[in-house]
């Protein structure tokens, strides 16, 4: 495992919202840390998650499985999940595999946060 694999997953907590940066982990086993970070945010009370794919070039079968784990975890606590900054190739892959049934997509992080804030305020 390289040093990069051991570096912490980047995330930021905004109260009920949290952003987790997928980086380039979603094609290897070390990507499980993304799932752990998402679960940690959900366990700490976060009810809307943005996963930012800006630095993610490739999502392979391991990455898909990890994201399915995140979808499952979010679904179990009724949290919303938005994928932002996803490249076209990956969007097509997610569509083909049926992941789009479970998550919303946003062009970028700001749009994702804005949509989640709107949804949260409507709910309030």
């Amino acid at each position, binding site marked *: 495992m390289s040093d990069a694999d051991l570096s912490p997953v980047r995330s930021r907590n905004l109260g009920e919202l949290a952003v987790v940066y997928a980086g380039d982990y979603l094609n290897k*086993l070390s990507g499980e840390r993304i799932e752990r970070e998402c679960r940690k945010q959900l366990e700490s009370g976060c009810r809307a998650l943005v996963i930012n794919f800006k630095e993610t070039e490739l999502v*392979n*079968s*391991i*990455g*898909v*499985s*990890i994201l*399915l*784990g995140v*979808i*499952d975890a979010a679904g179990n606590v009724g949290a919303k999940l938005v994928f932002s900054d996803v490249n076209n*190739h990956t969007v*097509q*892959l997610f569509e*083909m*595999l*049926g*992941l789009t*049934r*479970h998550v919303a997509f946003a062009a970028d992080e700001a749009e994702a946060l804005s949509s989640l804030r709107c949804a949260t305020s409507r709910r309030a």
Partner: protein
Amino acid sequence: MSDLVQKLAHTFGALAELGQEISESNNLEVTARTSLHMVLGSVAIMRGAIALYDGRNCVLSILAGRGVGSENIDPIICEDGSTASLGLGGIRLICTQEAMNTSGFPAAVSKLLNLVGAENMIPLVVRGNLLGLLFLGEKASGEPFSTDDREILCAMARHIAVGLQEHNNREELESRAREIQSLYEGMRAIYKDTVRAFAVAIDCKDKYTQGHSERVGRYSEIIARELGWPEEEVEGMAVAGYLHDIGKLVVDRDIINAPYRIDAKQSSELNRHPGAGFEILSPIRHPYADIPLMARHHHERLDGRGYPDGLTGEQIPLGVRIVTLADSFDAMTTDRPYRRRRTLEEVIADLRKNTGSQFSVEVVIALCRALFNEGLHAIERKLSWLQGPSAKTRVVVGDGTQVIAANVNIVFTEHDNTIARGCVFSDLLRQSPRQWMRRCVRIRSQQSKI
């Protein structure tokens, strides 16, 4: 890229990566976890698990799981023995609900399925042998598995099954290797005990040199270790030392035990023992090299004046030179019927005189270094209970038994024990073994004047 092409690229990519993972990894748990990710991610299945079937102990246990609470599932014992029959049908996707309703479906698998809650499973089979089970939930898309999905999942299951088979083979191989190692160690222990028994038998014949073979074995071992030999060869040198005099078993006991210097005829009879030792030891398949040769040549000298073959210099193997010195050192430091043991000064003088002609320089230096180290340990032990500003002590160079039966007297004249310890050690550590030996002798002679 069309959907079909992209799907093919994704699934074949998963298959290729799985093949690489299976062939490269040595860690079963990591491989299982990675493989499960690849299977689930290839067609986007929400939940799944890989269970290992231990056919020998009839146990099913979860190796890796996703979304099935696998961490809380204990291994299940397959009591009725029917689980293995799942292997007979080969690798295929089974709808678990249907299968569980059929008669004869293994109860243990039903129990595990109820815990995992998977809708589908694939037996992991190699040549009809069940090695495990791959449990699969539903697709994230909610669609049923297509024919392509089934094919790709079965192909991946085949890879995993081969990985499990390889793991089982490796475990069996390691288990057999451990068994063989244990047998080998047992045989070596028997061999060593036998060698020791021989050494006792040899020494019993000579009432004046009891323990000689055992000590020569110990000294040979110490010198070889000091020379940095591998442990296996060090053990071999101990054995060579134990057996070097085995040829004495064929020499007349009266000659061996003669309480006087023997005459030429008797000497000639006694000198037969290296050759006789070689004859005795040659038919035996020793686990160490050159044991018979070391018995044959332990009375050879570098200057060619030894016997039985009059070998010179490099013709004499290093192992032989070690046994030769160990033998002579023990002879010098033990009482014989015709002379008392020599003092350390005499021993050192003798070693100096004969190094290069009888003894090899590197072997003598190794022995001196070993003596030096033994001396340091002995001094350290002694210093721990020294009292007073000016202490006088007698240090046995050796481990307190009769390992190296030379005595060294050292006078400490420092102000207190701490200083004495520091000074003595720093002083000694700066010296070569030879210098240290000279110093010991000088100190002893000074002491005798006190």
